[in-house]
């Protein structure tokens, strides 16, 4: 497999993703819309609950988590199981396309889609609420990439075990939606009641939100390492599970 082959496949996967209106909406337009909605309600005045930051300043990085969980736990499992159900994965298996190339191209295309959602979100946040950004772009990109890879790995685990696309969709949504609300991605962690905060501590998305909020305001990696550690473990464990149990047919 050549670089050209990899890029053609990645490009094709990306185009197909954009041709699914629902997937496109939830990946690229949902988070910015939610931001506008909550912005209308809360504005972006500095608030001591957030250490002097405005509601929107903390919401934008937290919403990265919404995009990541949507792509990883809903987009990937559904699309992968549909491709399996329709025999598309089987069809690829009698071509020289290597499994690793398929995975790399697939992951890359989801990463690009999530990134497009992030760009839309940040653009709306900047234009509508002039959100503050005090971090470094490479760090935020690195944190976003680690988080996305960890959640795509969880998505591959769901796709590995789901017997059908319908089940994959159900499982993905059942896992994703409560997590969005309980992890501090939708409602800031500081505003969650203590019981919910304890639940949040068990959810991987919480560590995405903490990492992204930290990197957003320029906290050093040395203080964010527990989040990095949790997400790395999720990535390695889920990656290993799907490498072992992923089914092509």
């Amino acid at each position, binding site marked *: 497999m050549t670089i050209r082959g990899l890029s053609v496949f990645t490009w094709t996967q990306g*185009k197909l993703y954009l041709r699914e209106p629902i997937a496109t909406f939830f990946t690229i337009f949902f988070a910015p819309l939610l931001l506008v909605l909550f912005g209308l309600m809360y504005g972006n005045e500095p608030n001591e609950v957030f250490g002097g930051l405005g509601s929107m300043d903390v919401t934008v990085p937290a919403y990265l988590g919404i995009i990541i969980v949507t792509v990883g736990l809903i987009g990937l499992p559904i699309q992968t199981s549909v491709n399996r159900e329709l025999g598309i994965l089987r069809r690829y298996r*009698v071509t*020289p396309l290597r499994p690793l190339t398929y995975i790399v191209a697939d992951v890359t295309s989801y990463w690009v889609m999530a990134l497009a959602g992030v760009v839309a979100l940040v653009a709306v946040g900047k234009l509508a609420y002039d959100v503050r950004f005090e971090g470094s772009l490479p760090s935020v990109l690195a944190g976003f990439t680690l988080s996305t890879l960890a959640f795509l790995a969880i998505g591959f685990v769901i796709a590995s075990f789901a017997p059908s696309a319908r089940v994959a969709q159900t499982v993905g949504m059942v896992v994703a939606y409560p997590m969005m609300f309980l992890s501090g991605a939708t409602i800031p962690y500081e505003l969650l009641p203590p019981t919910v905060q304890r639940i949040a501590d068990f959810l991987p998305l919480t560590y995405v939100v903490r990492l992204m909020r930290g990197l957003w305001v320029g906290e050093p990696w040395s203080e964010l390492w527990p989040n990095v550690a949790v997400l790395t473990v999720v990535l390695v464990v889920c990656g290993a599970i799907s490498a072992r149990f992923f089914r092509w047919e």
Partner: protein
Amino acid sequence: MTEPVIVVEQLEKSYGAVRAVDAISFEVAAGEIFGVVGPNGAGKTTTIECLEGLRAADGGRVRVLGLDPRRDGDVLKQRMGAQLQEAGLPSRLRVGEAMRLFASFYTRPLEPAAILEGLGLADRKNVAYANLSGGQKQRLSIALALVGDPQLVFFDELTSGLDPQARRATWDLVRDVRAKGKTVFLTTHYMEEAERLCDRVMIIDAGRIVALDSPAALVHALGTEQRISFGADGRADEVLGAVRAIQGVERVERSAGRVVVYGQSDRFLAPLLGVLQDAHLSFHDLQTEQPDLEDVFLALTGREMRD
């Protein structure tokens, strides 16, 4: 003698207690259209999937283009093309995109546009897979199997679900593939398809080879008589003696209003017509009946092939 393209020795594959393929051996020569026929569940798809490397055999030896499909899959897949049963494409993927995508998998692909042209899909280039007709989807699956310029092409139940007209058109396309010097290995449960299309046919039933030869040889080996029958009036009795004397005729039966002539070869048709004309005998509703692969299957397994 060139090396056989496919060598199978004592291939075995079971699913639980079911022996899907039971110690079969055969070879496929370069440039052949080789067909595997048999009823559903006979082991056709299991056999083809073992050759394609999709499935690991339980026992026996398989060599495809001199390679082990499981161990040397990467090399083999560069040199083979395959159309699978029940394998689709993303519904929103367009024909041209599918061709470019599949071409990118191979080190030396053919020009996608030329293949689409040859299969009558050139004007469908921008149509999404979901919007193609059944026949067009099937032609695209042929195109995708050919884009890597393979030496060997697998077709698994290529024409199932197509109407008879589309099926016949597909046969021509398969013949074109062979005419380009490629070897074709196909499975079908249509006996007529095997008979009309294949150079050699392997009939399998319950995982075992029932017969393997050219369709003509299989039918010939059956030894079944051919029959020509026609309706005639009472004067037909006068010519029965002359008819019996024709070379190739074995017996003649006379029933109310009809004469049935049995023989091993249809060479007696012309002399028979000559006899009837010389006697100025008017006849009508002349029918010839030849045994076909269906009869071969019936004779060898004691069962009818069912679609």
